[in-house]
């Protein structure tokens, strides 16, 4: 392991930790602009997290240790996921330990813990949110896996940095299978990060919320960690999307520090564009009824499988 690889690893995790709230703030700001509201500052998410860290935590009576543990586990899995995803460089020492399928597993672990913690207190809203989260999760996961399988089939590996590297270096070609899977991935991203067609991140209206309902009982540092983890999750998903569909710009292979330095503004640019796109999708679409969510996710699954089939038949 060369020192530059270790440095890349540390840089990526640090960047994910610091940039995730900024990215979420940027999406919120774009949304506000598009909806003709006066926008909050991009730093608003940081302020929220800082404020929560300074407060005293209150834990509901009867909460089990799992309830206290969950924020740390969720946050930890998201940081671990950030370590696998090649957002700036593809030579990540940590990524050899876990491939893209393990990454899906990490996301699933976070989901299980957050749902268990939501049910732990026994309030009806927590249980409702947890059950809806599990419904969305079990439908979104197969679609995400198939998206990863298609990319793996094209690049003949399941390690995310290698997939990204091979996709970036292969001859430029029109690939309908990647186009289909990109659509499927976007739909999964929206569903998994509680974005608009499935869940509204800004709502506190009890009957329609999913993610917020699970966090109702949390306060202070636990809530701060949960919100930071949610921002990290969005950041991670976006970076997985970059790695699979627009891998150009990251430092490939045995890159030196200069290439790594060059990858930072490119990542920032990609994130800025992705934030605008995300805000645009959320502005033009309406939130679906919860019972229409399976239809939305079935469509995502269909797109992913079509991508797989088209790849097998047309080899593109």
């Amino acid at each position, binding site marked *: 392991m060369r020192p530059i690889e270790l440095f890349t690893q540390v840089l990526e995790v640090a960047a994910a930790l610091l940039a995730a709230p900024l990215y979420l703030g940027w999406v919120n700001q774009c949304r506000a602009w598009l909806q003709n509201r006066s926008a909050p500052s991009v730093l608003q998410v940081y302020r929220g997290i800082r404020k929560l860290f300074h407060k005293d935590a209150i834990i509901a009576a009867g909460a089990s240790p799992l309830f206290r543990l969950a924020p740390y586990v969720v946050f930890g899995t998201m940081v671990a996921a950030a370590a696998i995803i090649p957002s700036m460089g593809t030579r990540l020492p940590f990524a050899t330990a876990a491939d893209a399928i393990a990454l899906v597993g990490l996301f699933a672990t976070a989901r299980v813990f957050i749902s268990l913690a939501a049910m732990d207190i026994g309030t009806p809203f927590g249980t409702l949110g947890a059950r809806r989260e599990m419904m969305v999760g079990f439908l979104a996961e197969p679609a995400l896996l198939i998206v990863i399988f298609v990319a793996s089939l094209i690049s003949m590996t399941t390690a995310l940095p290698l997939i990204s590297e091979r996709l970036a270096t292969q001859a430029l070609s*029109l690939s*309908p299978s990647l186009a*289909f899977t990109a659509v499927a991935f976007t739909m999964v991203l929206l569903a998994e990060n509680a974005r608009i067609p499935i869940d509204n991140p800004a709502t506190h209206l009890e009957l329609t919320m999913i993610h917020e309902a699970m966090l109702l009982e949390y306060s202070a540092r636990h809530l701060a960690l949960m919100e930071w983890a949610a921002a990290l999750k969005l950041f991670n998903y976006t970076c997985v999307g970059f790695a699979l569909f627009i891998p150009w710009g990251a430092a490939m292979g045995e890159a030196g520090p200069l290439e790594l330095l060059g990858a930072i503004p490119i990542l920032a640019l990609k994130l800025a564009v992705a934030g605008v796109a995300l805000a645009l999708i959320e502005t033009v679409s309406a939130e679906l009824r919860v019972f229409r969510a399976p239809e939305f996710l079935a*469509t995502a699954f*269909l797109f992913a499988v*079509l991508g797989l089939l*088209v790849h097998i*038949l*047309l080899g593109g």
Partner: protein
Amino acid sequence: MSVASFVLQLLNSLAAMLLLLSFAMLSQRRVVTLVNFLALQGAILCAATLLLAWRTGEINLYLSAALTLGLKVIFLPWLLHRLIRRLDVYWDTDTLLNIPGTMLVGLVVVVFSFGLAQPITALASTATRSAVGIAVAVILLAFLTMITRRKAMSQVIGFLSMENGLFFGAMSATYGMPMVVEMGVALDVLVAMLVLGVFFFQIREQFDSLDLERLESNEEEP
């Protein structure tokens, strides 16, 4: 990247879009949107035919592209829109199977048709032979659309979509049927459409609905 391989990739992408549109038609409940999808499918078919004609230099293909444009992109959708307005059938609400279920059956159908097309693909010598599987899938998905719908209107649209699939299959397996056959098929479709249009009015006069299930139940009464 050479021009030839780029054209082939473009053709493959168009084929993939045809398949996608078939699924869109399978899941669509609004008849008006269904007709628009049919027109779009015709337009993609026309573009694919033009590309192939340019690539192979066959005059026949230019003619059939023009035929596709005139008949399937402009005339038939216009006729269908007019019929929808006059018959006042905008929705086909009750499909026989729920939408996600239909989609899953559709996926199985696609896998089946890819397997089915394997021997044809092995026999054909054209550059576009790998798209034969997609053509078979489009045909069978159109079949599925006809099977799962109750209203006569959606069934006719399924029928037309099936014709698109057949046309695409012939194009990718052998660079198009002979011109006489193609003209004959086009005329058949046109006449069938006109006759069915008259039928729609008759069916509605008799049963006050375009639901074809009523035809079956009526038979049993003395």
